[in-house]
Each structure stands twice: as structure tokens, then as C-alpha cells.
């Protein structure tokens, strides 16, 4: 087949892919080039190409800031706690839903617990700010038991817990879907055979159901490695306040404040690049592990 013959048939494929390439070049690759601001004393008037280079100065300054270890610790602590809570919660919830035999009941519960996943953090944050306020319904409720008012969003002893629990609220239902799909793939004959052999309910859950979803558990554990720097930017930006920066300020919120509120582009760019760089290796590692141990490929 000559090139001419090939192109006569294939040219529309190239035309089709061009718009996507232009958008990705402009809005994904051009910003990647823009990470050079981390090594510059960037000024918007001069742009990426003409701002003066200053080497590693921004990073040296960044690593000397007391905030740096704080935002890194907060990010990893919150993200890991969320992953663990979410996955364990999802496994337990999926197992319990799987044991509930009445289909209509199951569907109803699923419908209700998936819902928060589809609402924005502004809507959920608005709800949380209302119910967790000092005079909100939760403080009224615990007040009935003689417990003092708690600042769920405004105190450093509560903030991380509030973030983890409200993240759980939004995501745990949706996370069960993958496990439920894996559970339906378990052959019911295994359960019947075990029951005939005298295995009770709990033994069957332990020896048949759980091993049946083990590949899925391994897969999601591997994939979640890519998220250990994702503590939940939109959630924390919605819920936090200066009073809880000590326990709640994360890399993303810091980049936003320093870069876009205070316009220190180069410093914020350095923090952002630090995160992008580590995040990239985490994601690649997680995909590699998922492929190696669970045979998973996205394409």
C-alpha cells in the first residue's frame, strides 16, 4: 500500500484528532512548560520566556519555610486517613449490602448513599457549615446529652476529623460500586456447596466472599497510592479558615493562597511543581503495581 492509498482512506482520522491535540497542547502542555516559573523570578509582564532565571532559589526558600513541613504533613495525613477510611468503609458496606437479600431494600440504600457523591463541595460545604455551626443542629443534639459545644470546623482538635468524616460521607457509597461489581461475579455455587458442607454465614463470608474480592482490594490499594497527595482541595478550601491552618492547610490550598491571592507566582509555582513531580511518580508507580499485581490496564 503506497502512502497515497493509505492517506486516501486514513486522512479523516488525522483531521478528527487535531482539535483534541490543539486543546491539550494549549491547556495541558503549555502549562507544563509554564512550570519554569518555579526557577524564575516570574513577572506576568515578561511571561514564561523572558522572566529572569534564578535557579533553585525558590525551592531553597520554600524548604526553609516552617509552613512547608506543615502543609506536607497535613496533606499526607489527611489523604492517607481518607483512603484508609474510604476503602475499609466501602468493603464493609459492600459486604453488608451483598448480604441483604431484598433487592428493593438494597437498591434504595444504594440510591441514598451514592447521592452525596454527585453534589458539589459548595453544596455539601454549605450544609456542613450550617449543621456544624456553634448553634447548629449537631451541637444542639449533643447539648441534649450534656456535652459542651464543639467547634467542629474552627478548632484544630476537630478539623482533620471533620474533613475525614465528611469526605467519607461524600465518597464511601460511590466507592462500594467497584466492590459490589466484584461481589456479583462470585459464583453462587461456591456458597451453596459450602452451606451443604455445614459452613455457617460468617465462615462463608470469610472463606468465600472476602477471597473473591481480594483481587479488587489489591487493585484499589495499588491505585490509591496515586492519591496520597490528594487531600481534597475543593473540600478543604470550602471548609477551612485561618484558625485551622495548623492542622488543615494542605499543599493545594497553600498554592492557591500564595499564588493566586498574594500573587507570589514563582513561590507557588515551586510548591506546585514539587507536588506535580512527586504526584507523577506516585501515579506511574500505582499504575505499574496495578498492572503487576492485578493485571489492570487503563487502555
Amino acid at each position, binding site marked *: 500500500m503506497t502512502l497515497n492509498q493509505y492517506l486516501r482512506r*486514513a486522512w479523516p482520522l488525522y483531521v478528527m484528532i487535531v482539535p483534541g491535540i490543539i486543546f491539550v497542547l*494549549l491547556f495541558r502542555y503549555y502549562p507544563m512548560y509554564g512550570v519554569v516559573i518555579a526557577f524564575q523570578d516570574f513577572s506576568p509582564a515578561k511571561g514564561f520566556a523572558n522572566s529572569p532565571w534564578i535557579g533553585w532559589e525558590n525551592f531553597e526558600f520554600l524548604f526553609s519555610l516552617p509552613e512547608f513541613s506543615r502543609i506536607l504533613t497535613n496533606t499526607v495525613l489527611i489523604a492517607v486517613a481518607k483512603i484508609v477510611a474510604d476503602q475499609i468503609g466501602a468493603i464493609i458496606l459492600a459486604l453488608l449490602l451483598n448480604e441483604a437479600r431484598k433487592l428493593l431494600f438494597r437498591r434504595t*440504600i444504594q440510591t441514598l448513599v451514592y*447521592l452525596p457523591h*454527585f453534589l458539589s463541595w459548595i453544596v455539601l460545604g454549605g450544609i456542613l*457549615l450550617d449543621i456544624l455551626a456553634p448553634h447548629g443542629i449537631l451541637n444542639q443534639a449533643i447539648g441534649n446529652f450534656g456535652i459542651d459545644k464543639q467547634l467542629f470546623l474552627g478548632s484544630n482538635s476537630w478539623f482533620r476529623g471533620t474533613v475525614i468524616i465528611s469526605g467519607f460521607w461524600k465518597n464511601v457509597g460511590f466507592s462500594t460500586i467497584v466492590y459490589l461489581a466484584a461481589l456479583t461475579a462470585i459464583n453462587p455455587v461456591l456458597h451453596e456447596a459450602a*452451606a451443604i458442607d455445614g459452613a455457617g454465614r460468617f465462615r462463608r463470608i470469610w472463606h468465600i466472599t472476602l477471597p473473591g474480592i481480594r483481587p479488587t482490594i489489591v487493585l484499589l490499594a495499588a491505585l490509591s497510592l496515586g492519591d496520597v497527595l490528594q487531600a481534597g482541595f475543593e473540600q478543604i478550601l470550602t471548609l477551612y479558615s485561618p484558625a485551622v491552618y495548623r492542622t488543615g492547610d494542605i499543599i493545594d490550598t497553600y*498554592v492557591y493562597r500564595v*499564588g493566586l491571592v498574594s500573587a507570589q507566582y514563582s513561590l507557588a509555582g515551586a510548591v506546585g511543581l514539587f507536588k506535580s513531580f512527586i504526584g507523577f511518580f506516585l501515579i506511574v508507580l500505582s499504575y505499574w503495581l496495578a498492572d503487576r499485581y492485578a493485571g489492570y490496564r487503563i487502555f
Partner: protein
Amino acid sequence: MIREQKLSSRLFDGFNYIFLTAFAILCLAPMVHIFAVSLSGRAPATAGFVSFFPLDFTIENYQEVMGSRTFLRSFMISVARVLTGTSLNMALVILTAYPLSKTPRVFKGRNLFMWFFVFAMLFDGGLIPSFLVVRSLGLLNTLGSLILPNAVPIFSVILMMNFFRDVPKELEESALIDGASHWKVLWFIYIPLSLPAIATLTLFAAVNHWNAWFDGLIFMTDNANYPMQTFLRTVVVELDLTNVGIDPRDLQRLSDRAIRGAQIIVATVPILVVYPFLQRYFISGIKLGAIKE
């Protein structure tokens, strides 16, 4: 089917039904509370007397919200964004996924293009450079800043591509032998056969556009251009009315507790409307990509 006879097993069932019911109620309770607040009179709402049923039932709060020009303007911006943004997303997802679903023999350079997109998904330039690019393109305060930067949702492209690959090759081959172009093959074979996947991805794109607010916050320097979720942030979350340069009296009214509740519910209703469809499709939607072997 196994019939459970033992007492411990039946106890477990009872506990299980109670636990799941309680958990679902707990997930829903905060929303029910806000819904009750939004339907209550302003005095009992502000005083904190409302729990899960409205007091001094009224729809006045909703009338107040829908009568506010500031709120309605942001609502219309969001509607415009969902319509244009979703259409653009889906056009690009389909156009990009189709060539990528071909083998490198049919579409030379396919693997190179694939890596071009995958790398763009894995490595992120970060917030600041992305913001500076949008600004340098002169997109601040335009609808374009909300729909163009994420015009190509790469993960959706991969899902669509995986779905296209499962379309039987014989249909395409016979059409190509009969002289049809790839345009016709895409339009008359692939799209009609992929409608469930397209519906799923369309719904997800629409929900994402409706829920997005951070881009509005950074790209709209004039608050009058805020889409609804961003506007809601200034009223419901930030509770800081001084930095909003639009009709302060209107904002004062909208920040009343019961009216805040009404705005939260108004922002939720479109999601509830599409939710049954979302639920029907998203399980198959997830299957078509994420757990594909």
C-alpha cells in the same frame, strides 16, 4: 438459594437491615435538615428551632431566591456553561476517541498520539501555570475560561475509546469496502452503537460542569460573571459580603439562614432530576472502562 435457619444468621440479618437503614438515614439527614430549614419561616430558622420538619411552613424563601436578579444571573451563566461545555466535551471525546480506537496499522502514529494524551493526564502543570496560560490567552471573565481548559476530558476519551474497540469490526470493514469514509463509519455505525456510553459520559460531563466552582472563582475577576456554584460560595460558604461588588442589599437578603438553605436546595435540584438516569448508567459506565481487563 440458601435458606438461613440458624438463630445467629437471622440475628445477623436483622442487625444488617437496621444498620444499613440507619447508615442511609445518617447520610441523608443533613440534606433533609437543610430542606426543612429552607421551607421554614425566617424567625424559627434563624433561632435554630427547626430540625427535620419545617416550622411556619412557607415557600417565601424560594420566591426570594428566584426573585433575586443576582442569583438568577449566576443561574443562567451556569445553564449556559452546562449546555456549551457539555456539547464541546462530547464532540471532542468522540472525535478523539475514534481514531485512538484504531490499531496502529489502520491509524499510523496511533501509539504516539495515545501517549501524548496519557502523559497529559498523568502530569499536571499545576494551578499557577494553568491560571497564567488562561490569563495570557485573554480568557478571564469569559465563558471560554470555564469550558475551554477542560474541553478534552482525557479519562472520558479513554473510556469512550475502550467502548469503541468493542464495536464488531465486521460492520466497519464491510462499510469501508463499500466505499464509506471514516466520517460515515463513525456517524452511522459507531455513534448509534455507543449511545449508552455516550449518554453516560454526557451526564457525567454535565454534572461536572454544573458542580464546578473553583475555575469560576479564579477566572472571573468580576463577580458579576460568577456561575451559580461560585456565587453560592460567596453567600453560603464565605459569608463575607464585603468583597462582593454586586448589589449589597440583594446579598444581605440572600445570606439569611433560611434563604441560604433555599439556595442550596435550588443548586441540588438539577442533580436530583438527572440522578435516576445517572444511576441507571453509571454502573455500566464504570464497567466500560475502569475495571476492564
